[in-house]
């Protein structure tokens, strides 16, 4: 068969499919409802997850991919035996002065639970207390919306100053200008010198619920004989030297901690890249699982289409007979019904796309998640899948129509 003739048949088939679909507008809509809902759920889910993922990636990018975080790590087995690995202030100093090519080396200590009580004019609450150096600002791109961040001299002279996350304001019901007021942390009073920028929620976790204190002040606050376990973060000046620096730090810490040759590390060195990779994997598998579930709903939608198409073939038996008497070949009839099924599915896909994006945007707005984005691959996949469903589930009804005997079909009442 000539290419031009197939093209002609496709054009005519599409024309007649369009007429047939719009002649039974409501039924066509009901027929394709399964596809509409299926595609709408794909797009809604994907748009929310992707919008979310884009937002996270952005946050990691803000952190800089050449930032390294080191935390202590105790295997579960040892933890059960009461052993706890620790990174100390000494480790921090060693890294800061012995490793070349790094900057903004920052020690961080966190206070949780009973230590983390905060008070203000009789109001009490709790928050995440972070004791850190002034370089924390550069590593984590925290900018004060009002006031200032603490500087090196605040840290050196153990000043009792605090930078508050914006959520603390409402938590403690602080009214008026917070700068210059005092809040209580672990029974000591701190002067508020700055309020950080709002960041919003992530996984339902409030990123604005924290109090930043100078590192030295926090250490003093924790007091006691026991040294706190700290987190050490720094920036590698040359991203190409990232692996080299990691190895140097690793060797240094192992020496410091007097670990045997065959002992495991009692610390973890993580880069933002690694975290991003892990996150991408989580998002990827989440999308896959959700996609699978939604795929099943598309399958069900396809079966719905097949069902109605089969009814439609029976209903139009006589028409098919007439068309055959007028000279339609099997291929003509097959193509006509296949195109109709694919056309239906594509229309459903389009409606689903619009609906899904609307639903995704609505969900994002209502839950405060980052705004929904629909990646091109999801659009192409939805349409491709819809067309595929139409083809697969259209073929049985179309073959049934094409194989009708013209005489029987003409006699059909």
């Amino acid at each position, binding site marked *: 068969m000539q290419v031009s003739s197939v093209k002609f048949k496709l054009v005519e088939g599409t024309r007649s499919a369009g007429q047939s679909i719009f002649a039974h507008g409501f039924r066509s809509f009901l027929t394709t409802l399964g596809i509409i809902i299926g595609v709408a759920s794909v797009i809604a889910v994907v748009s929310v997850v992707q919008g979310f993922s884009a937002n996270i990636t952005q946050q990691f990018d803000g952190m800089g991919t050449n930032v390294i975080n080191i935390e202590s790590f105790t295997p579960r087995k040892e933890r059960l035996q009461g052993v706890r690995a620790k990174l100390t202030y000494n480790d921090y100093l060693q890294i800061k002065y012995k490793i070349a090519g790094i900057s903004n080396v920052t020690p961080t200590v966190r206070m949780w639970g009973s230590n983390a009580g905060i008070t203000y004019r009789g109001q009490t609450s709790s928050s995440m207390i972070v004791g850190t150096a002034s370089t924390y600002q550069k590593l984590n791109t925290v900018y004060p919306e009002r006031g200032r961040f603490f500087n090196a001299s605040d840290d050196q002279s153990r000043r009792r100053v605090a930078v508050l996350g914006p959520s603390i304001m409402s938590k403690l019901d602080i009214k008026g200008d917070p700068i210059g007021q005092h809040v209580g942390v672990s029974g000591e009073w701190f002067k508020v010198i700055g309020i950080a920028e709002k960041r919003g929620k992530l996984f339902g976790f409030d990123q604005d619920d924290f109090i930043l204190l100078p590192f030295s002040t926090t250490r003093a606050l924790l007091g006691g004989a026991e040294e706190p376990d700290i987190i050490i973060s720094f920036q590698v000046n040359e991203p190409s030297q990232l692996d080299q620096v990691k190895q140097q730090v690793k060797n240094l810490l192992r020496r410091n901690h007097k670990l045997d040759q065959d002992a495991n590390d009692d610390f973890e060195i993580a880069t933002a890249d690694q975290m991003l990779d892990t996150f991408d994997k989580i998002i990827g598998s989440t999308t896959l699982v959700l996609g699978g579930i939604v795929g099943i709903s598309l399958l069900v939608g396809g079966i719905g289409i097949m069902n109605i198409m089969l009814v439609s073939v029976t209903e139009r038996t006589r028409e098919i007979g*007439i*068309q*055959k*008497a*007028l*000279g339609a*070949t099997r291929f003509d009839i097959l193509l006509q019904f296949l195109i109709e099924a694919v056309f239906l599915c594509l229309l459903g896909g389009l409606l689903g796309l619009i609906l899904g994006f609307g639903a995704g945007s609505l969900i994002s707005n209502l839950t405060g998640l980052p705004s929904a984005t629909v990646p091109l691959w999801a659009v192409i996949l939805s349409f491709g899948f819809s067309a595929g469903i139409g083809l697969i589930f259209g073929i049985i009804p179309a073959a049934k129509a094409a194989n009708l005997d*013209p*005489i029987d079909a*003409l006699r059909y009442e």
Partner: protein
Amino acid sequence: MSKQTIIELKGIAKQYVMGSESFYALDHIDLDIYLNDYIAIVGSSGSGKSTLMNLLGCLDYPTNGEYKLKGTDVATLDENHLAGIRNQEIGFIFQNFNLLPRASALQNVMQPLIYRGLPLAERKRRAENALTMVGLQDRMTHVPNQLSGGQRQRVAIARALVTEPAILLADEPTGNLDSTTTIEIMALFDQLHADGQTLIIVTHEQEIAERCHRVVTLKDGHLMSDQLNQPQASSPSLEVNAGV
């Protein structure tokens, strides 16, 4: 008078098998149909006239025999070629009109031209001409439901004519029409015959058969008589009727 043969049937048989029994709906029929013939095929129900109609219309295969349409043995053709023959050489007119219910008169008439691969503009031009020829130039956008029985049959005739077929096959074309409309449709057939069209009309109505120029009578699958008719002459139709 030398006539150009359009259809040659030689020993055409159609056998139906039902369980252990079998019977011939058509029992080895020989029939030649010539250009511009105006034939009525008559017979009681079960005489095999519908079967003959289906065979002539290439909707069905004979069990035995040779069917030559314009020199081609169609019994040997595959389904796609038969569809082509139905499209190019045969125009069907049915008792119940068999129009596509959701399509307008114009779309109905354009339909067979789709299978011929004609572009839309050309289809439209030809379909409008055909509808004008049957006097429906004012009803082109009407769907079958909005048309009277006579008008519907005119649409069907226009649809059969639009492909300029070698033969026009009408199966009880006036069976669903009242007497006034029947006369109108028969006048249209007379006109088509006068214009050179070959017409085959299957009917059981005497008045219809009387208007045709040749009457073929079937009974129990056998060809009983094949007589020429002079419609305007005294009353040769009586002889035909006597044979039925």
